[in-house]
């Protein structure tokens, strides 16, 4: 057992000095080196017509939203030109999806991503879409580029399920990363060579889930039609923005500051302990596009 423990008293001491210090859960401090690091850019795009029905995306609108988001992210006017900055024709590309039956990535989103990857010159035979089978999938075994796309939701054991967590299926035994509420989940990105290979993170906020109940962690009433998509090369920044929106929705819904059942500390720790990306909102350049009503951020 390590010599120095982090206890509730440490929260109390931190809170006595700075009232919000304990909110995110780890109490870890950003180092001086981190303070000077560059900002991460995140694009949040929303469209009132993104869904044709409850949780069902409109494929044409999704394509437009992704195009606008990626061009804004990369400062390129043409979507195909933007995608050519992400993938090369010779790349083998895995679209890391999510098949959770209550909130999957959806074939509409997968299709829109695949189309632009092909437009960028990648042969269809070199593009794979998978979630739980990535370790056995030849495309993913050889992938030189990964597009990481999944819906945002609260999660019973890690606080939120976002882009950081979505790569856990690359791990032989995902449960090995469940300790301390998945605090050190970011390590798998380095251990499985995902940091450089993941070219884009797409956190779907079309129908995000803001509260989990029961063994399956799902109920329709805790999903709302936000009709947004977050994109960033930085999975931590993408999750940080998604988390803020989910927390704001919880505040709105419950009428009080209702903490997540499990603090989503893995997002902050992904920055402070593992340097995977940036979670600190002050160092995230957030570009907001499209529909603004009830944006919550």
């Amino acid at each position, binding site marked *: *057992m*390590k010599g120095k*423990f*982090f*206890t*509730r*008293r440490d*929260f*109390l*001491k931190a*809170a*006595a000095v700075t009232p919000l210090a304990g909110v995110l859960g780890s109490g870890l401090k950003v180092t001086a080196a981190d303070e000077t690091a560059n900002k991460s850019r995140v694009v949040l795009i929303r469209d009132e017509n993104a869904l044709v029905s409850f949780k069902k995306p409109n494929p044409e609108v999704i394509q437009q939203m992704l195009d606008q988001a990626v061009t804004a992210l990369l400062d390129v006017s043409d979507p195909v030109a933007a995608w050519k900055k992400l993938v090369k024709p010779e790349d083998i590309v895995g679209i890391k999806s999510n098949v*959770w039956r*209550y909130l999957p990535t959806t074939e509409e989103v997968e299709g829109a991503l695949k189309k632009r990857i092909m437009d960028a010159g990648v042969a269809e035979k070199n593009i794979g879409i998978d979630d739980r089978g990535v370790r056995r999938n030849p495309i993913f075994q050889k992938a030189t580029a990964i597009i990481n796309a999944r819906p945002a939701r609260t*999660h*019973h*054991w*890690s606080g939120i*399920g976002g882009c950081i967590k979505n790569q856990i299926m690359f791990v032989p035994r*995902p*449960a090995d990363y*469940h*300790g*301390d*509420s*998945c605090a050190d989940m970011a390590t798998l990105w380095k251990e499985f060579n995902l940091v450089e290979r993941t070219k884009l993170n797409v956190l779907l906020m079309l129908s995000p889930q803001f509260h*989990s*109940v*029961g*063994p*399956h*962690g*799902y*109920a*329709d*009433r805790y999903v709302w039609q936000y009709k947004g998509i977050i994109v960033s090369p930085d999975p931590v920044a993408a999750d940080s923005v998604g988390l803020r929106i989910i927390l704001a929705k919880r505040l709105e819904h419950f009428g009080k500051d209702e903490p997540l*059942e*499990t603090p989503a500390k893995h997002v902050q720790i992904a920055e402070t302990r593992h340097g995977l990306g940036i979670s600190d909102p002050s160092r995230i350049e957030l570009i907001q596009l499209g529909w603004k009503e009830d944006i919550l951020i």
Partner: protein
Amino acid sequence: MCYSNEERDELAVLLPEEVNGWRPAEDDRIFDPETIFDYIDGAGEVYRAFGFRRLFARHFAKSGQPDIYADVFDMGTSANAFGVFTHDPEGKDVGIGQGSKGQGSLLSFWKDRYFISLFAEEETEESKQALMAIAHEVDRTLERTGPLPLIVSYLPDENRIEGRIHYFFNHLILNFHYFVADENILFLDENTQGALAFYRWADSTYPLLLILYPDVAKTSEAHDNFIQTYMPDAGASDLIQTENGKWTAARVKKNLLIIVFDAPSREEAEKKLGEVRLK
């Protein structure tokens, strides 16, 4: 993991083959602590933390109605079944089994060593009725009841908030309900029993934590480690005013460790410690 037909049947017979027109939509499935993540994602850790043995899952479907997922967890002991039931306190008692709660499309209860969760993909009047019908059927089939964990009987009744008792033997579960420390400083394991309850005082609440150890030596060891780790500034005392102006106290009675967190005053902390009695 393989199961004999007898083991499979033991769980299968708990669930009806048909209810209000809902019938099994696919083959039943059984999961163990290694395979549970194939079925219920990360929340599987909760059931593993309570030592579950097997999960029997039946998926019901009915034309024009939402699918229903019936999950029967064999938790090994009634204490574990009670513990996992107390993990998620949301919902209203619907009078089934030894404890139940329903909220919208979700109904769960425990009885004997089983925890049963019933979930409809959408909430309709018919699906709610079907959940209740399945629950009553399982409740009838399970004839035996099981005892509550001993430690729960040690919790004082006065000013205790109804429905806010949590039973566990895993420090991650304790932290889920009330964060104490990132490491297992209280030495919780499968040989211990932990109970956390919340007490009302004026407009606020504060928690009382009880942990029953297998012997007095283990209890003293955990107490000393807690004092050194959590309140090293307490000196020879087992009571301290923390940075939020509230009081934390820890005391041992035989093989029981009693900790009051965030009591509003020294007197209230002392009073609550004194109310805990071994039976």
